[in-house]
């Protein structure tokens, strides 16, 4: 039984992280799939969302600014707004230039954000990061939440305490995973609606034939900036959820560009850029492959350890880089052989409503 619960909880965490990646990939899909904007600063926009959420919602702490202890929803909305604001500045400057410049500028802004987070120790606690970030569902078991409204309206602190002590310790895990899946679904439905709306069709027109769209009187730059901001806001949301999931964030390893930016690109390209369902499918697929490859490589190392005298210490420290190498080659392979991805983009027909 305990083992079954263990598998179930592992499945929950796979779902949760896969869902977070799906959110980022959906945001990237708005930028790249809809508008053809090449953003390689994903880690930066996600970290802005995560830090905004963390600083606004954590309890007061002497280590960093505030800990304002605001409601979780406020933190999530603020994370989206902050990420959107940063992207608006970058977008206004770089989007009128060719995509290469946007790529350089986004990779630059991600580095600058990392520098700011690392160096402003009095606000962000620098490289040591922020911890005890409230996680949705689990936070209800914390004293400051059940003592305060809205939870105190329904029951007294003692009642809440007895309810939580009667539940198994892991009760919040499936709830948390489910909430992320619901968030992914809501974002997906909204984006599908947007894709089929006049706005979405205009985006496709601009991406496919910019001069024609321009000649038809469409505000090309304006639409692109809108798509860029919208995508970054979704990344900011994903950042807030990531902060919840990790509970401890710091500027460098948490937001490692090779694990966030690069992996998300592989997910979107593999799943099918321009297709929202493809973005979600790609995220879960690549995430499962990524997690499974860790297990496979560890098993392989153990086999080598059992049957040979090779010193495996070096192997296990370098296995992570081998995974990165293989994922990189996978990206090159998909780019050349299957540029459309698993689920290619399907254009809405003139009359389709679904």
């Amino acid at each position, binding site marked *: 039984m305990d083992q079954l619960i263990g598998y179930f909880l592992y499945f929950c965490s796979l779902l949760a992280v896969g869902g977070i990646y799906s959110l980022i990939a959906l945001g990237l899909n708005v930028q790249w799939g809809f508008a053809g904007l090449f953003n390689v600063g994903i880690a930066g926009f996600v970290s802005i969302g995560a830090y905004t959420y963390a600083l606004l919602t954590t309890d007061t702490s002497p280590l960093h600014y505030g800990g304002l202890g605001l409601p979780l929803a406020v933190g999530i909305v603020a994370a989206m707004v902050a990420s959107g604001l940063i992207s608006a500045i970058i977008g206004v400057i770089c989007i009128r230039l060719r995509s290469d410049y946007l790529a350089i500028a986004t990779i*630059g802004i991600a580095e600058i954000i990392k520098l700011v987070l690392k160096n402003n120790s009095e606000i962000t606690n620098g490289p040591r990061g922020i911890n005890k970030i409230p996680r949705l569902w689990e936070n209800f078991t914390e004293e400051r939440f059940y003592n305060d409204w809205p939870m105190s309206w329904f029951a007294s602190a003692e009642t809440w305490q007895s309810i939580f002590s009667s539940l198994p310790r892991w009760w919040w895990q499936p709830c948390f995973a489910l909430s992320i899946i619901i968030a992914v679904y809501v974002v997906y439905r909204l984006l599908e609606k947007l894709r089929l709306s006049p706005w979405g069709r205009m985006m496709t027109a601009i991406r496919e034939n910019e001069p024609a769209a321009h000649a038809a009187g469409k505000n090309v730059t304006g639409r692109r900036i809108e798509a860029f901001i919208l995508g970054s806001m979704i990344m900011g949301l994903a950042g807030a959820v990531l902060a919840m999931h990790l509970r401890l964030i710091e500027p460098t390893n948490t937001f490692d560009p090779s694990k966030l930016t690069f992996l998300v690109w592989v997910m979107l390209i593999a799943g099918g850029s321009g297709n929202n369902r493809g973005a979600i499918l790609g995220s879960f697929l690549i995430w499962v492959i990524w997690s499974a490859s860790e297990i496979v490589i560890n098993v392989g190392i153990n086999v080598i350890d059992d049957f040979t005298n090779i010193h495996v210490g070096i192997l296990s420290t370098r296995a992570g880089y081998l995974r990165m190498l293989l994922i990189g080659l996978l990206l090159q392979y998909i780019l*050349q052989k299957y*540029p459309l991805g698993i689920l290619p983009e399907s254009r809405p027909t003139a009359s389709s409503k679904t």
Partner: protein
Amino acid sequence: MWESFGFEFVNFYFVPGIVLGCIYALGAIGITLTFGILRFANFAHGEVMMTGAYVTWTIMALTGALFGWALHPLIAAIPSVFLMILVFFVVDRFFYKPFRKAPTIKVVMASFGMMLVIRSLVQILWGPNQITFVKGIAKPNSFIRELTGSMDMMILVPNKHFLIMGGTVVIVMLLGYLLTYTRIGKAMRAVSDSPDLALVTGIDVEVVIRATWIVGGACAVAAGVFLATDIQMLETTMGFRMLLPMFAAAILGGIGKPYGAVLGGLVIGLAEELSSYPWIGDAPLLSPGYKSGVAFSIMIVMLIVRPSGIFKGRTF
């Protein structure tokens, strides 16, 4: 005057700025040529720099262990240059060439992927930890110190900095000769200025592309080795750290303009070092932690004010 202002300024801010600028300049030459001739921002360039330095170190260590030679980094860099040019050829053939006719963003994406592939390969082969490139503390050149000291303006420049500055001057002069007087150099400039016109006049674009990788590869290895000589160690992230300043230098100088890249590199290098000089009061003008933000700010300002750069390069 010298005691209160010049000594500190020249020795601790100006000379290191020039040295850093030389390294940026050499890296930016490759980036600007690739951008001008192949028309894409090569994100893998910094990683080739880094790999070149690692290969150079390996050659030094191997010859030291096998034959007991203590090779100078610059000599060990020669085989490394050939190897890195080969790497560029292989990467171009298998990962960039399939996208020659496709929209350029595809090849940018491929180069972004190559950046991680090359880096993880280096991390697998050499491990993620820092490696000491040259041992010991670099002492200032005693001849210059005594000469300038007797004139009451002591200048402390270690030999490694002379090596970097001198090496850069030689390489840039060679490059100038190549681009101005040789057939292939003229063809490279022609393709960079107008690819269609170059094609009409019978220039073989594939040959020009190969020449671009050779020049870019040689400069990249030189930049990597100089960087390793300067900081005296090897890190797998040092290529990525150089990438943004090098792009900034290329854009500042004008895309496709090698001299622009050299000037841009020097400006960026100086600006980064001088930004932490205490211009106002005693505190550094900008905390040294933000040094690498300077290059980015210069690049952003340039993109707003004059995207074609100082030397009127291409804009896309």
